[in-house]
């Protein structure tokens, strides 16, 4: 299931967030070699992990097995502060568009031979479910050019923001990706499960 962590419920996710920071360090520093994110305590936390970030945790029991983060484009985010060179048009900003970053799945849960990991699809499904419920209709993506094929196949409507740029040996591009109920239907079809992936919270806790 996918758990959404915000300041409203963070007190109940102290242990899970601890796992999430370490999972991010394992994936992005140790594995991908993004050394500028390295931290001596092994918890990858950056300047964007403010109370405005929304954390998506894929959990199996008490274990965090996947992670994604959404950042509001109305505040500093990667495209505005770290990779502005990827955007050659007016930078899209607004409450309806959030930037998707730090997507990662624990090594123990990466299936061999399959391109699209079930945990990744569950995380993205959770993001789209959350977006549809919160008036969000677009994700801001920074990704290798080839990922656009899957973005389109999943019924997102991508709009590139510039030509791809070579970053650390990979061709990276920025794009917005609009989504709607069809995107959710497609994600659910790929998952083979039409139920919500989100853990439902008692209403008094989300209020």
């Amino acid at each position: 299931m996918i758990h959404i962590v915000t300041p409203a419920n963070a007190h109940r996710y102290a242990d899970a967030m601890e796992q999430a920071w370490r999972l991010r360090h394992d994936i992005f520093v140790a594995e991908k070699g993004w050394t500028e994110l390295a931290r001596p305590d092994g918890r990858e936390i950056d300047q964007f992990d403010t109370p405005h970030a929304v954390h998506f945790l894929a959990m199996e029991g008490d274990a965090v097995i996947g992670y994604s983060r959404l950042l509001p484009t109305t505040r500093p985010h990667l495209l505005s502060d770290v990779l502005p060179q990827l955007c050659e048009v007016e930078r899209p900003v607004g409450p309806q568009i959030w930037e998707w970053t730090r997507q990662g799945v624990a090594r123990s849960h990466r299936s061999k031979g399959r391109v699209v990991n079930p945990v990744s699809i569950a995380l993205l499904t959770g993001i789209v479910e959350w977006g549809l419920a919160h008036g969000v209709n677009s994700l801001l993506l920074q990704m290798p050019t080839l990922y656009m094929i899957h973005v389109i196949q999943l019924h997102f409507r991508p709009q590139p923001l510039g030509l791809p740029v070579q970053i650390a040996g990979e061709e990276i591009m920025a794009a917005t990706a609009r989504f709607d109920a069809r995107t959710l239907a497609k994600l659910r079809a790929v998952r083979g499960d039409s139920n919500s992936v989100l853990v439902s919270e008692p209403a008094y806790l989300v209020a």
Partner: protein
Amino acid sequence: MPHSKHLDRTFSVLRDLERAAAPDEIARLLVDAFTRYGVSYVMAGIVPTPGLPARRHAGFVLTSTMPEGWARRYVTRGYALHDPTVRRLCTSATPFDWSTVPPDTPIASRIMNEAGEFGIRAGITIPFVTLDGEPGGISVSGDRIEIDPAERVAVNLVATYAVGQLLLMNSRPSAQAPARLSPRERETLQWAAEGKTDVEIGMVMGITAAGVDYHLRSARAKLDTVNRAHTVAQALRAGLIT
């Protein structure tokens, strides 16, 4: 912000690709966009599973503008399984120039030579993997191809986007219960097929442009199509409008 002419041209091709109604229109748009580099032909497909009889290879082609004679020979002789540029697809994730793929078997050399007889002497292939994990490739080819290194990223971007659209169109199940459109959906689509804008259709039907958009979207969802032109094309094919 200063726009390069190049960026504008790329974005305009992407817009056309998004509006395209059929795979051959996508192929045509690509050839038009890449003629300036010497590109005459485009072909995109999924790599046929080894052991699949050649007669079923045609189903793996997403789109092709290859010369008729060459395309027929290629499919009927099962060349896809021996073509060195196709075999490279399963091992490479980055775009490659055909000149870097030496024909390593006699049949591979024969394929490359025969392609030359049809004016196909140079090419670039961009490998991809579908959501289902199937390897595929899109190639642009011609007698001689010259792409400025700085423009390669734009070519990759356009070709990749086109593959996404092709796979989207290809995934539509054809043998399913015919969609049933409401009278309003049919009427808006009929006017859209006449080339009318949402505002114009709204005037004729006495509803707002947003209302027209709503009915068209609803038709799009029912027909499982990707855009306005594709919806009109599907509705015509299905005999839902005339």
